[in-house]
């Protein structure tokens, strides 16, 4: 759940002495149980209205800008939050984490009929960054999303225009991940695309991304 801030690497290589691949595998084992946010609804009218408003905003933004997602980051800051999420609460918050932001992005894209799937990611940073996040999250559930010098992050996969593959949109930092590094500080180490029948993407297949074939619903190590 990084916020995309770039800091100068300090100290050791961040792998705690283990090889890069071993460090990633270690992180996968630790973070494998994390599940993406699902925004729930109360039985009354509160969540119905909140969700309908959110979908209306998504569709309207899509009509005006052609882009469904950037308005989300203008509205919600990244940071720690309490779980679980309900629609009537999340629309009133000013700060949400990357998993909630990805959930909203998925809802926003579904509102305009775009296929979308949640993508879990493991990213490389360094011990200093990870330690700082751990402190930041101390009051908010702790460092359950951090492992060594890596962090857990959530993004979304969308269809790539003009090619059979996918693109991974990172709603937290508002960029496509195709140009992010695959080595070094802030690089992507592993991804897991969660594809189900609701995603609009063919479940069970492999998805082309940056010249790789990502297996659906399974961790793929992509680090160089």
């Amino acid at each position: 759940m990084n916020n995309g801030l770039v800091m100068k690497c300090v100290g050791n290589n961040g792998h705690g002495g283990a090889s890069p691949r071993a460090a990633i595998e270690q992180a996968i084992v630790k973070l494998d149980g994390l599940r993406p946010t699902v925004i729930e609804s109360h039985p009354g009218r509160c969540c119905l209205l909140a969700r309908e408003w959110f979908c209306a905003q998504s569709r309207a933004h899509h009509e005006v800008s052609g882009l469904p997602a950037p308005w989300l980051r203008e509205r919600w800051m990244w940071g720690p939050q309490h779980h679980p999420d309900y629609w009537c609460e999340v629309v009133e918050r000013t700060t949400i984490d990357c998993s909630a932001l990805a959930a909203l992005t998925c809802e926003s894209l579904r509102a305009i009929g775009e296929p979308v799937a949640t993508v879990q990611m493991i990213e490389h940073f360094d011990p200093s960054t990870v330690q700082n996040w751990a402190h930041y999250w101390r009051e908010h559930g702790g460092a359950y999303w951090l492992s060594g010098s890596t962090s857990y992050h959530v993004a979304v996969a969308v269809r790539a225009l003009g090619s059979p593959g996918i693109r991974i949109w990172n709603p937290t930092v508002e960029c496509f991940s195709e140009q992010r590094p695959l080595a070094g500080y802030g690089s992507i180490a592993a991804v897991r695309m969660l594809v189900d029948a609701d995603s609009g993407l063919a479940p069970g297949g492999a998805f082309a991304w940056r010249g790789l074939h990502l297996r659906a619903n399974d961790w793929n190590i992509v680090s160089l």
Partner: protein
Amino acid sequence: MSSIRVIISCCHTGPNPAPGLGLARSLKAGYPDSFLVGKDHSTQASGLHTEFFDEVWVARPWGELHLVDHRAQIIARLEELDGYYLPGSDLEARWLAEESHPRILIPGIDIFRRTAKPFEKVAEILPVRVPAFIGLDAGDREVYNFAVDHGWKVWAKGPVMDAYRVFNWTGIQQARHSLAACWGQQSFFLQKHITGTEVMLAFAAYQGHLLGTAVVDKRLVTSEGKCWSGEITTASPELLNAVALLVRELHWTGGGELELVKDEAGILWLIDWNYRFPAWIHGATIGGINLPALLIAAASGVQPVPPRCASRQFTRVVLEIPVLSSIPLPAPPPAARSTNVPSKLSASNPSGLPALMQRLFGPEGREATSQHSDRPARVARVDSAFAQAIREHVGPSLQTPARVFLPKIAEVGFRQAQAAAAMDLPVRLTPTYSVKTNPDRRLLVMARAHGLRAEVISTGEARWARELGFSLGETIYNGPVPLNPAELDGEELSAVFADSLESFHGLCDRGPGVAKTVGMRLNAFDTGSRFGLRLGSAYRFGIVANAIRDRLPRGVRFGVHSHLQSSVTGVAEWLAQARAFVEMASSLEFASGRPIQMLDLGGGWTSESFGPFLRDHLPGLVAHVHRRLPHVEDVVIEPGKAVCEQSHVLVSRILEIRRTDWIREVVADACLAEMPLAGYFPREVYLLTAGGNLHRLVDGFDRILGRVCMEHDILAGGLNIPPDAEVGDWLVFSHAGAYEASMRYTFGVGGFHE
């Protein structure tokens, strides 16, 4: 001394850097023992103080130089060094190209002419397109309509450099003024803005042979849009082949840069073309492509050190370095001129490069040809029906200033609206005449005769419309003034739209009988408009939905309204906003449980854009409304100025003709009181001489001043007033029938008209 000796000009490096320092660093990388002379026109050109130059040459600022002598100095120094010259600005390259020299590595002067902006000829060779453009001399109304058609996403551009992003008519006028101040009577143009990803391609060529290219993918840009960090990539084979073909065709020597934008569809648009290396050129060298060294190698035959790719990515940094004692900084400016924020111009050009622009193209350069009488007036076509109407109504007996009604022309817009209402659409289309735009009796009668309904913003307007034949049952009332039904004798309106939740509550509390349709105006989506109910938060959305569900009386139809001026947003943006409005309305319908039966889309079209809108966009929009809001029975549009702005002309007489240095100004007997929106949008201006000649005035630098002592009382500019104009001739201003008429006031005539 090294065999490679190069004079490099334009060495300032700031937020908008020149390429000189990057060229020097690249040449030092390719030729470590090269001898480099950094040349600029101010000791404040910061790159001169770096260790990459073996010698510095500070010439006087461009505004102080004897240009012929300076060229001779450059050539003398080149021959003394037996070296090469790489200019760092387009303007200097163009100046030097006027007398070519084999050691000045620049394209020939004919290339500057063949590749002149807006680059149509270049685009015929390259796999790129040129964004739509129109000459700023095409006629103000044509230029204005071009900007409206492109949603005011446009740039005003000079003939070689200079570009201003403009957002409204005032901006176009200011840009034209600034361009004229620098470039004199050159051709300027307005060009569509392209949204997309910037692609900057640098190249080096020698005698028509392409030596290499590099593309930068910008990652961080300055507030001026200049590259601060980026990644070096390669051009597509198609683009590469086309650039090779182009430089061969042009027999290009020197560096160059194409500034392209790739849109969402992947189409490349040519935005700019530079006749020298870009400032980011050393980024390419860091990425393993040393274009300056390739150029010098081709010219000298001396091979450079092969480039090494240190990283495909590069970034700029800010460093403090010692100033060379031999070229100390000048004294600070006097306190009276000192500001905490130096001007953009002086920060980017301490060498005074704009002065060279002015000397080559500005008033000094055009001095010999700027005599007013020498400048031929461009003849613009005058529509024959319009000419006939003017001659019918304008004559010696007309007391000016006068607003003259042209019934035949007025009827055009109403007929368009009538025809639209008769179109075969899935939902009934109800055009309504916006009474406030011009409550002239003749226009309201004409509107009714063509089947339009009335749209009013006050009970006073409603009563006026009723007096002229519109029943309240065919009148739509819009806020922001809350409706007081008592002022309408209890008669039921066709529809009333509340501008606030408070107003909506008030209408609902009165129960049925106020209007067949009670609705609300929604705030235009994400625009910050002051009007309408805001739905920008889920909380507000819930309150509004619950108010509709719980308070709107049964048996009353529900409607929604939104309004943006198409002339301000442009048609494309207006359509996008209309569709966004439909989406918000759709969710409001779902959340409130009350079907939306009337949808009022507002208006704001210009008279020129209304017809194309009705023909090209309205049917699709109405079909979309029908799909998304299937309960809608009436789609309302509110043409106001679209149908009446050309219904009147303002006729004025020339009181005085003044000659200034190189333009002509006439003082008219009309003023802003008769044309209060003169500065906000243009109109066609005609001169009717006593002899009966009718000229449309376009393409020039002359202007028409109003009669009152207000600085901003300028009725029109950018005109060429013909030499035969005389005091007493008539000036006719078109498009004076909408708000120009309804918002006119009494001023400077010695008393109020009660």
